[in-house]
């Protein structure tokens, strides 16, 4: 908790700022869902959201939802189609930006949500869901992760959602939003864009399991405005995604689905 807002609220704001007006967004759940609603309510009133279960919305659900299939996400949707319909739009190149989470990441933005032996013994994770598809086919992708050394690895054990690689047809990860900062991702690796207020360069180096060039002069992530915070608290009134520590915490679930 920094003064007046939580890290996760700041991450929602950072996610919203990745969405430009009139863009088609592959939304996903949890923080990006709030970020999409926030972007629509502020600087991107004409953004359109696609959900992999087939739902297309141009405004956020009017009641709190836990999953993209919850009834309030269907009521008032523009269209309810099938998974292949929205995946086809993605493959065709009509999706500007997609959001994904990962359990582990490497410097090229490869994400692992399938299996890892990083802690010494084999741990099976849930798998891709739509993460691999968004990573492969969106115009650009924004990754959202908990910033811990065991999650930031020089090489991931399994590439569930491909990052940058030679011969990529389109897209690739452009931005990484973590609990500590916002980072630019490119074929040449990870670069710090901003650190969240109160986070030091040393803290980020310590929390990153591969070498990362961080200058002490790096700028701070712009804090949420009063209007942005007001929106988030209306959309997540009990702080389920942005204030509470729960098993369903967005950053604990290690999932793209």
């Amino acid at each position, binding site marked *: 908790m920094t003064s007046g807002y939580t890290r996760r609220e700041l991450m929602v704001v950072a996610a919203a700022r990745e969405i430009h007006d009139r863009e088609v967004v592959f939304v996903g759940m949890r923080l990006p869902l709030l970020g999409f609603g926030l972007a629509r309510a502020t600087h991107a009133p004409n953004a359109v959201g696609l959900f992999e279960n087939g739902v297309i919305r141009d405004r956020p659900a009017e009641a709190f939802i836990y999953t993209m299939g919850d009834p309030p996400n269907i009521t008032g949707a523009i269209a309810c189609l099938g998974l292949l319909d929205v995946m086809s739009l993605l493959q065709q190149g009509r999706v500007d930006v997609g959001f994904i989470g990962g359990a582990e990441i490497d410097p090229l933005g*490869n994400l692992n949500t399938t299996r890892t032996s990083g802690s010494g013994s084999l741990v099976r994770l849930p798998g891709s869901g739509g993460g691999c598809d968004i990573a492969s086919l969106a115009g650009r992708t924004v990754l959202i992760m908990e910033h811990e050394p065991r999650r930031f690895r020089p090489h991931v054990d399994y590439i569930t959602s491909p990052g940058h690689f030679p011969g990529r047809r389109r897209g690739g990860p452009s931005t990484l939003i973590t609990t500590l900062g916002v980072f630019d991702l490119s074929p040449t690796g990870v670069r710090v864009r901003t650190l969240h207020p109160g986070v030091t360069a040393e803290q980020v180096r310590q929390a990153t399991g591969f070498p990362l060039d961080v200058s002490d002069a790096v700028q701070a992530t712009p804090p949420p405005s009063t209007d942005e915070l007001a929106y988030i608290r209306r959309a997540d009134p009990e702080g389920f995604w942005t204030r509470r520590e729960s098993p369903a915490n967005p950053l604990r679930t290690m999932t793209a689905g």
Partner: protein
Amino acid sequence: MREAIAEQVHDGDAIALGLALESGIPFAAVHEIIRQQRRDLTLIGPISDMAFDQLIAAGTTARVIAAWVGNVAGGSGYGFRRAYEQAIPRRLVMEDHSNFTVGLALQAAAMGVPFLPTFTGIGGDIVRNHPRIRPIEDPFGGPAPLAVAALRPDVAIIHVQRADAQGNAHLWGNLGLTVEAAYAARRTIITCEEIVPEDIIRSDPNRTMIPGFLTTAVVEVPGGALPSSVQGHWRRDFEPFLDYHRRSRTADGFEAWLREWVLDLPDRAAYLQHMGEAAVERLRVRDEHLAASANFAP
């Protein structure tokens, strides 16, 4: 339900379910399969929420073909992890997919073609040495795609809002891979909130997602998808997902959960009774948000 599962689902079958993603998961059918102790099943689906985890932990499952296995509320599926990591209660073969590739595999079977091309997954590990996904050349000279081979389930199990006695099924809300799976499968079991006269189905043929000649069994089972949601009928009940997540952390905990919520209950009516009337009524959708009518006059 008992007869439908007994007749339509056999040991060794490949079963597609959980096709709409988080909503309309046919839990009543899943629990009946567990009670009837089916073995060596293959489970097919995009994401499965905790339905696959329960089937795996109960020992019914030899193989999973899916994009995601876990518990949407809690993250990891402990039953799936025990089977994959430690072969408890038995060894599990996993065929990893993305949501798109499992959809294309079903769609190829639905279309009666051997495979469908795609560009998803290139550069990642899912498509590397995959039994059902291989690189091919574009015969028209474009960039090389991957081919996803057709996947034909023995049975698809689908929960819908309403169907008639012939199994013509109306479904609304997010569809996921429901239609592709029903078209691909050799047999389709429809479970529904209500069986309605056929003139209701014929009044709105655009809403018929599954024509009855594809349906091999239709069962009226109100609340048959709880704790998942059904548009216009049931809200999602969040707590049972978290409760299952906590209790299934150990094999013993799972066994206790299984006895309480599956083995000691004969059917879905008993399940709803065990939830308690207040809990059931809290989830029931009573508001109306009706679609405008569409004129089908000739």
